[in-house]
C-alpha cells in the first residue's frame, strides 16, 4: 500500500514537472518560464539598475571606458581603435543579442530552425534569392581588406565574449519563450545583416507583375497605368544641371521588339515575401548661407518598418583615429548614420531597380545544364539544407547560372506559375565591401574623404547626404547601377544568350550628384533622382510628393534653425491632398449623395489638409481616394482573372488633372459610359458606410484610424511587447511618413557649428529587453515630435553629471 502511494506521488510529481518543463501541454514551458531562478523574472530588471562593471578580457590591447548617460546611450572611449569594435560588439550583444541573431537567421533563411515548419516557405525564398551566396561573396571582400577584417574580427569577438558569459537565467527573454539558445556570432552574420538591409531597400521589384500586366493590358494601356516618370517630379538633382552624354550607346538586342516588348506570358509566379516598397526616407541639408547660425544643418529620417527592439542602437565611439556619434546597426561595426567632429552623413533610399530576371531553359529536370549562347552550359548547384525544428530538414538544390541563382523553377514554381525557370540577376550578389564605406565615413574630415568613402558602396542605392563643419553640403546617389537600354529590365528577359545581359554599370562619376548648389539646400525623399535629361534609363520605385513639399518648405525658409528642421520632420501637411482634393470637389455631384456622404463631403471641404491625429478630413480623404482608385481600376484589373498590381497613386491623379475623360474611368462591365463625375461620386458613396462605422466607434479621427503601432519583431506572437495606438499624425506622401506600422525609425538634426548641435529621437529604447524600463523609453516622445539634445561627449567630461554609470574594459 505504502509503496503504491509512493509510486503514485512520484508519478504525479514527475509528470507535472515534465509537463511544466515542455511544450507538450502548454505552448510554453510554464514551470521553467516562471521559475524565479531561471525564468522570465530574471529578465525583470530593477528600474534603478544601471550598468556599472569593471571587466577584463585578455584580447584587449588597451583600456576602454564606457560612460552611459541618462538615456542609456554608451559613450565609448577606447585607447586602441580595434578595442572600440570589441566593446561595440559586446554592448550590442548585451542590449540587442536576440534581435541581431534573429535578423541574421532570417536573412540566411534559417527561421525554421527556431519556429518550425511554418517558416519553410520564407526560408526557401531567402535561399532561392541567394542571400547566403551574396553574404559569402561580401565576406570574402570584407576579409580581404585588413581594416574591415580587423573591425569585424574584434566586433565578433566582443559579441562572443558576451554570449559566453550568459547562462540559462540571463538569456534574453525571447530565447526563453521560443526555447532555443544563441549560437556563436561570426563575421558571416555581419555580412548577412548587410544583405538583410540590402533586401529591405533594394529587394523590391515588379518584373513579374509588369510582365503580366503588359501581356494582359497591351503596351499602350501599360504605359498609361505604369508610367516611368511623374508629371510633377521634383528630382533630387535640381533641374537645369547638365549631364554629360554617355560615350557609347548601348546595344539593344536585335529581337527586343518581338522577344521582349511583345512577349506575352501570363502564367508567371506571383512573388511572395516582398519587402515593403515604402522603405524610404527623407534627408536634406541646408547650407550656412541659409541658416541662422551660418553653419550647415543636416537632417535625416530613415523610414522603415517600426519595430521593438529598434533596428537602431545609439552610441558614441571615440578612438585615437575618430570620434563619431549616431546610430549603429546591432550586427555590424561602426556608426551608420550620424556625425563626427568634422562631417555629418545621412541616407535615403534611391529606390532604383537593381534586380532583373532571365528566363532559363534547362536541358532536363536535373537542372544541371541550360541553353546559353548556342550550347548547353553546366549550371552550378548549391544545396540548401533548411533545418526545421520538430521535423526533417528540407533540402533544396538551387541551380546557379551566369545571371545568378534560379529563383523559380519546377521544383520551386512559386504561386500560379507554369514551372518555367527564372534566374535572378541582382547587384547584391556581386562581391563588395560596403562596410569599408562606413569605416572611412566615420573618420572622414572633408568632402574628398566622403567621396572616397562612398565609392565602396555598391548596393542598396542610397542618396548619401553630406555636410561639413567647413561649410560644404553635397549629395551623391551612390551604388552600382546597371546600364540599361530604354525599357530593359522592366519585364522578364530572355536568358538564352548574353544579348539581354547588363552591359556594365553607369560610371560612378556619372551617378546623379550635387555639391553646394546655388539654391543653398539639397534634399532627397526617394523620388526619381534626376529629370528626363539624365541620359540613362533608370527605372525604380519612386515617391513623388514628399520631395516636392520638402523643397517647397526649404525654399521658403530664410534663416533656418535646428528647431525649424525638427518641425519640418514632423510636418503633417498632405501635399497629395492639396492636388487631389480640388479634383474630388470639382467632379463630385452633391445632389446624388446620401445624407452621410454629404456630411463627409462637408468635413473634407473644411479640412485643413494636414494629417494631424485629430483630423477627420484626413481619414475621409484617404478613404475616398482609395475608393476612387477601386472604382476606376478594379474593372480593368480584374477583367483577366489574374492578379494585376494597382498603379501608383500619382497615376490616377495626373490622369484626372490632364483629362477628365481618362479612358479607365469607364466601367467596362456596364453598357453605359462612365465619366469622372460618376466615378468620384460613386467612390464617396461606396466609402460612406465604412466612414459611418468609423464615426460610430470614434475612429474617424486620423490618429485613431491609423492606429500607429510599433510591433515587437515577433509581431502577433508577442503582442503585449508592442506599443499600439500611438497619437501621431503623418502618413503616405507626407514628410512625417508615419503609417500604421512604418515610418521615421530615427529622426536626426545636426547643425555643424562649433560645438556641433545635434538632436535626435527614435521610436524604441536602448535596451531590447521588454523587462527593462529602457525598452520603449523614447516611443512616447517620438510620437509627440520631441527630440533629445545629443551629448557629443568629450574625453575631459568623464566626471560630468550627465554620466549616470560607467563600465571599464581592460586587458
Amino acid at each position: 500500500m505504502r509503496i503504491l502511494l509512493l509510486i503514485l506521488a512520484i508519478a504525479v510529481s514527475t509528470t507535472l514537472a515534465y509537463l511544466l518543463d515542455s511544450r507538450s501541454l502548454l505552448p510554453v514551458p510554464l514551470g521553467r518560464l516562471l521559475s524565479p531562478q531561471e525564468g522570465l523574472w530574471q529578465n525583470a530588471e530593477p528600474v534603478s539598475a544601471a550598468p556599472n562593471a569593471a571587466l577584463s578580457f585578455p584580447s584587449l590591447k588597451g583600456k576602454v571606458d564606457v560612460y552611459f548617460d541618462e538615456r542609456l546611450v554608451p559613450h565609448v572611449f577606447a585607447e586602441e581603435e580595434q578595442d572600440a569594435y570589441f566593446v561595440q560588439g559586446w554592448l550590442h550583444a548585451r542590449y540587442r543579442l536576440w534581435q541581431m541573431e534573429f535578423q541574421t537567421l532570417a536573412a540566411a533563411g534559417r527561421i525554421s530552425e527556431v519556429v518550425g515548419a511554418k517558416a519553410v516557405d520564407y526560408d526557401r525564398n531567402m535561399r532561392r534569392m541567394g542571400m547566403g551566396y551574396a553574404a559569402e561573396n561580401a565576406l570574402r571582400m570584407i576579409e580581404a581588406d585588413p581594416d574591415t577584417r580587423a573591425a569585424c574580427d574584434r566586433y565578433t569577438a566582443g559579441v562572443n565574449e558576451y554570449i559566453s558569459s550568459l547562462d540559462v537565467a540571463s538569456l534574453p527573454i525571447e530565447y526563453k519563450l521560443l526555447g532555443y539558445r544563441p549560437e556563436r556570432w561570426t563575421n558571416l552574420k555581419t555580412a548577412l545583416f548587410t544583405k538583410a538591409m540590402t533586401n529591405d531597400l533594394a529587394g523590391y521589384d515588379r518584373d513579374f507583375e509588369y510582365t503580366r500586366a503588359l501581356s494582359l493590358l497591351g503596351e499602350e494601356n501599360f504605359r498609361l497605368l505604369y508610367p516611368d516618370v511623374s508629371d510633377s517630379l521634383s528630382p533630387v538633382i535640381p533641374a537645369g544641371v547638365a549631364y554629360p552624354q554617355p560615350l557609347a550607346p548601348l546595344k539593344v538586342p536585335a529581337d527586343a521588339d518581338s522577344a521582349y516588348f511583345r512577349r506575352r506570358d501570363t502564367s508567371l509566379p506571383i512573388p511572395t515575401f516582398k519587402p515593403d516598397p515604402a522603405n524610404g526616407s527623407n534627408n536634406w541639408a541646408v547650407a550656412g548661407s541659409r541658416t541662422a547660425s551660418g553653419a550647415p544643418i543636416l537632417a535625416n529620417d530613415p523610414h522603415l518598418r517600426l519595430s521593438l527592439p529598434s533596428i537602431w542602437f545609439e552610441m558614441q565611439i571615440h578612438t585615437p583615429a575618430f570620434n563619431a556619434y549616431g546610430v549603429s546597426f546591432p550586427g555590424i561595426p561602426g556608426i551608420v548614420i550620424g556625425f563626427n567632429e568634422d562631417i555629418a552623413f545621412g541616407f535615403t533610399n534611391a529606390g532604383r531597380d537593381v534586380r532583373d530576371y532571365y528566363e532559363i531553359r534547362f536541358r532536363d529536370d536535373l537542372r544541371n545544364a541550360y541553353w546559353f549562347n548556342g550550347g548547353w552550359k553546366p549550371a552550378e548547384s548549391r544545396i540548401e539544407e533548411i533545418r526545421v525544428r520538430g521535423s526533417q530538414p528540407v533540402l533544396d538544390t538551387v541551380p546557379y547560372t551566369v545571371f545568378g541563382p534560379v529563383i523559380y523553377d519546377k521544383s520551386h514554381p512559386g504561386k500560379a506559375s507554369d514551372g518555367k525557370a527564372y534566374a535572378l540577376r541582382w547587384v547584391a550578389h556581386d562581391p563588395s565591401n560596403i562596410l569599408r564605406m562606413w569605416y572611412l565615413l566615420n573618420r572622414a574630415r572633408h568632402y574628398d574623404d566622403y567621396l572616397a568613402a562612398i565609392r565602396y558602396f555598391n548596393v542598396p542605392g542610397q542618396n548619401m547626404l553630406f555636410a561639413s563643419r567647413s561649410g560644404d553640403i553635397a549629395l551623391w546617389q551612390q551604388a552600382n547601377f546597371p546600364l540599361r537600354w530604354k525599357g530593359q529590365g522592366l519585364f522578364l528577359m530572355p536568358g538564352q544568350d548574353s544579348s539581354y545581359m547588363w552591359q556594365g554599370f553607369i560610371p560612378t562619376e556619372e551617378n546623379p550628384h550635387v555639391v553646394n548648389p546655388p539654391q543653398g539646400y539639397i534634399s532627397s525623399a526617394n523620388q526619381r533622382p534626376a529629370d528626363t535629361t539624365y541620359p540613362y534609363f533608370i527605372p525604380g520605385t519612386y515617391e513623388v510628393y514628399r520631395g516636392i513639399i520638402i523643397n517647397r518648405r526649404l525654399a521658403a525658409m530664410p534663416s533656418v534653425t535646428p528647431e525649424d528642421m525638427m518641425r519640418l520632420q514632423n510636418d503633417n501637411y498632405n501635399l497629395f491632398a492639396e492636388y487631389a482634393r480640388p479634383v474630388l470637389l470639382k467632379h463630385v455631384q452633391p445632389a446624388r449623395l446620401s445624407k452621410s456622404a454629404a456630411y463627409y463631403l462637408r468635413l473634407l471641404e473644411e479640412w485643413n489638409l494636414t494629417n494631424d491625429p485629430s483630423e477627420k478630413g484626413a481619414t475621409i480623404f484617404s478613404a475616398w481616394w482609395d475608393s476612387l482608385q477601386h472604382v476606376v481600376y478594379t474593372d480593368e484589373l480584374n477583367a483577366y482573372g489574374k492578379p494585376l498590381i494597382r498603379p501608383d497613386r500619382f497615376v490616377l491623379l495626373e490622369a484626372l488633372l490632364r483629362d477628365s475623360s481618362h479612358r479607365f474611368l469607364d466601367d467596362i462591365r456596364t453598357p453605359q459610359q462612365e465619366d469622372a463625375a460618376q466615378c468620384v461620386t460613386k467612390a464617396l458613396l461606396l466609402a460612406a458606410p465604412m466612414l459611418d462605422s468609423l464615426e460610430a466607434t470614434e475612429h474617424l479621427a486620423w490618429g485613431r484610424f491609423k492606429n500607429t503601432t510599433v510591433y515587437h519583431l515577433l509581431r502577433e506572437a508577442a503582442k503585449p511587447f508592442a506599443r499600439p495606438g500611438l497619437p501621431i499624425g503623418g502618413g503616405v506622401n507626407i514628410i512625417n511618413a508615419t503609417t500604421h506600422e512604418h515610418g521615421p525609425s530615427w529622426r536626426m538634426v545636426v547643425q555643424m557649428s562649433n560645438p556641433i548641435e545635434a538632436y535626435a529621437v527614435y521610436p524604441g529604447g536602448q535596451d531590447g529587453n521588454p523587462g527593462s524600463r529602457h525598452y520603449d523609453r523614447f516611443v512616447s516622445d517620438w510620437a509627440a515630435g520631441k527630440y533629445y539634445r545629443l551629448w557629443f561627449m568629450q574625453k575631459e567630461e568623464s566626471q560630468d553629471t550627465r554620466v549616470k554609470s560607467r563600465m571599464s574594459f581592460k586587458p
Partner: protein
Amino acid sequence: MKSAMRHFIPCLLTVGLTYAFGLFLPWWSVALAACLAMAALRIRPWPSFLLGFLAAFTCWGGWTLARSLSNEHILAHRMSAMILGLDNPWLLIGLTAAIGGLMGGLGGLCGSLFMALIHPSTHEFEHSETQSEVEELTRQ
C-alpha cells in the same frame, strides 16, 4: 511554540535547499529540495505536503514579488498579458507561487513517503522522534 518550530524548520530547510539546488539544477529542483527536507526531518505525509507547499510557495512567491516590485511590474504587465491574456501582474506572481508551491508540496510528499517506506519504525510518525530531531537541529 514548539509546534511552530516544528513547522518552521522543514520550511526553512526547503527554502535553503531550493536556493542551493537552483544554482546548478533546473527549476524543478524545488521539488527535490522539499523532498530532501521532508525526508531528512521525517515529516508525516500530510503535513509534508502542506509544509512543502507553503515553503515553496513562499520562496517562489516572495522571490518573484521582490523582483517584480523592483521592476515596477514592467515585465509582469507584459508577460501576464501574453501568458494569461490578462494584464494583471498579481495573477502572474500568484501563478508563479502556486507552481512553485505545488512542486514543493508534491516533492515533500514523495520524501515523506519514501522515508516511511525505508524506515518502517517511523511509519507511525511518532511525534517524539521527529520533535527530538527538530530540537537537535535548532540547538546547532
